[in-house]
């Protein structure tokens, strides 16, 4: 499978199912790549997969794709430790890969099941930009006949918040779109803040659309609970201490990285929110406090 086919397959996956997380599409693509790989050694396989992940991050530079790729690589390493023979190993990998995909496709449902009990009648929720996980949580809460209303930030520069508002209107949830600058103004009216995450870092903090950090700081100042909903495959092995520590390759869109010379003139698309501002994380592994996240990562990677 060469680069073009790989990228085509990835884009086709995203087109076919716009509701799928980009990390899931990346893992599906890598699994397909694995099936078609003609390598003879495990080391060769790993190198090819690393190359494939790099191609994919060249298309979609988000943290989620990178973490999905790393997770898949880890999965390959763990499986290859058990079986020495390559062909048997590949068979086991393919089976387990399908199973893994099946499990993570159920992760959003698990998250929604955990989170919707925190939404009560009459709650006013603030959210940021467009997140499919948050949408699923609010869908579940609406299905449980809870009465709540939502404020969504517009989330420039791509106005993703309007897309979220449209989706919520279809669920008959009263929704108001507010300016990104109006977060501080609106916070006194809301009861809780729920946002998604593109990546969950080792410290328990999150990487998400730009404007999230601001919202977190304001919620802390107003003493409102700040909840994050994320699936477990978004856990990534980064430990940023401040905004500058987040690698440039995640901050800007893939095309921007390729074409622009001076990155300091571009607007970053994501920011980092430290764990001290987060109240709870809802994942398919359960409801976690930010300190529990590093435990999960250690269990996997070490």
């Amino acid at each position, binding site marked *: 499978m060469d680069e073009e086919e790989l990228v085509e397959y990835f884009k086709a996956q995203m087109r076919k199912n716009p509701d799928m997380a980009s990390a899931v599409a990346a893992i599906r693509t890598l699994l397909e790549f694995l099936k078609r790989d003609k390598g003879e050694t495990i080391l060769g396989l790993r190198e090819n997969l690393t190359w494939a992940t790099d191609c994919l991050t060249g298309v979609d530079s988000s943290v989620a794709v990178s973490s999905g790729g790393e*997770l898949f690589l*880890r*999965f390959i390493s*763990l*499986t290859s430790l058990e079986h020495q023979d390559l062909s048997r190993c590949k068979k086991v990998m393919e089976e*387990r890969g399908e*199973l*893994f995909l*099946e*499990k*993570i496709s159920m992760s959003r449902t698990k998250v929604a099941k955990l989170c919707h*009990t*925190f939404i*009560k009648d009459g709650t006013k929720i603030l959210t940021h930009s467009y997140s499919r996980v948050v949408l699923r949580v609010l869908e579940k809460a609406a299905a449980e006949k809870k009465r709540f209303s939502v404020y969504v930030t517009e989330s420039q520069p791509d106005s993703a918040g309007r897309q979220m508002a449209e989706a919520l209107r279809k669920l008959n949830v009263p929704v108001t779109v507010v300016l990104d600058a109006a977060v501080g103004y609106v916070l006194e009216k809301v009861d809780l803040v729920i946002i998604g995450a593109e990546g969950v870092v080792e410290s328990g903090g999150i990487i998400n659309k730009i404007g999230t950090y601001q919202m977190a700081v304001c919620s802390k100042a107003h003493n409102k609970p700040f909840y994050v909903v994320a699936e*477990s*495959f978004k*856990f990534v092995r980064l430990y940023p201490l401040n905004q500058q520590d987040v690698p440039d390759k995640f901050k800007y869109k893939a095309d921007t990285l390729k074409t622009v010379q001076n990155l300091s003139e571009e607007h970053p698309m994501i920011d980092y929110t430290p764990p001290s501002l987060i*109240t*709870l994380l809802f994942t*398919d*592994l*359960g*409801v*976690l*406090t*930010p*300190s*529990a996240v590093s*435990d*999960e*990562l250690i*269990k*996997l990677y070490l």
Partner: protein
Amino acid sequence: MPGPDKETDLTERIEAFLSDLKRGGSGTGPLRGSAEMARETTSLLRRITAQARWSSAGDLMEIIRKEGRRMIAAQPSETTVGNMIRRVLKIIREEYARSRGSSEETDQQESLHKLLTSGGLSEENFRQHFTALKANVIEAINELLTELEGTTDNIAMQALEHIHSNEVIMTIGRSRTVEAFLKDAARKRKFHVIVAECAPFCQGHKMATSLSKSGIETTVITDAAIFAVMSRVNKVIIGTQTVLANGGLRAVNGTHTLALAAKHHSTPLIICAPMFKLSPQFPNEEDTFHKFVSPHEVLPFTEGEILSKVNVHCPVFDYVPPELITLFISNIGGHAPSYIYRLMSELYHPEDHEL
């Protein structure tokens, strides 16, 4: 015939326990401490394991879950009952896994690692029959009972590390654990204790009497004076009814005020709570979180005219968020509030969080 007799005896005992639970909750505060409640629940569960009819671990877990749900429904505010049930369910799972020969460690928790390496969507249904299972489970429950008996002593043994000479300690209301803790320290050190009376039940008075009998210099203050006196206090040591899954507390009313005053003065807040008080609930359950009792203590019925014009409430519990807490002292040592999730994963299985 011994069979039906044992069964009726068992059902009688369960019914007696349930009615006890229902009665015990109303009135002027808890009639008995959580430790006794935990012991009684565990003894009852041991009796169910010994006397009820079951052939596989799955059956036993179903029976215990069913009875457990009834017990929790009888008195939702008494969380130790639910906690003990979850502990016993975890014991059954562990003994079952041990009998099957599989290593218990890796099978238990959901984790990213498990997601990647497990071979199948395995649904462990606990259907296999093992003859030694009953004896193993009962032995493990006995170990649990021994642990429960030693909790107060284990906590009190740590007192000398935390309390130093000539310190001023503040506490609120009456906690048997804190009482034992302070008395143990008093054997070797001299210190002062300030007790907030904790209206309207004023359990603080009993605490002060008991402490002063052991030779500790005690002062009783009203709840309103907590902030005023806090600047002279070195440490705040309190007990709690429940420790929640996020590290927060459900404690007697007035504790949040105490915690905020301590935070303002940067005074360490230490909670003496045995492990059986750790509950996998989060503070989002508004309906079951609070308990209100008769407002007679707040505004007596003899007040007359005013009663028709005002609403009087008497809540029993308070929520204290984990940011205000410095340290938890339990029978297995001292922990930070951010570590509670780890203790939770060791005590309970995630599938038992919702009975």
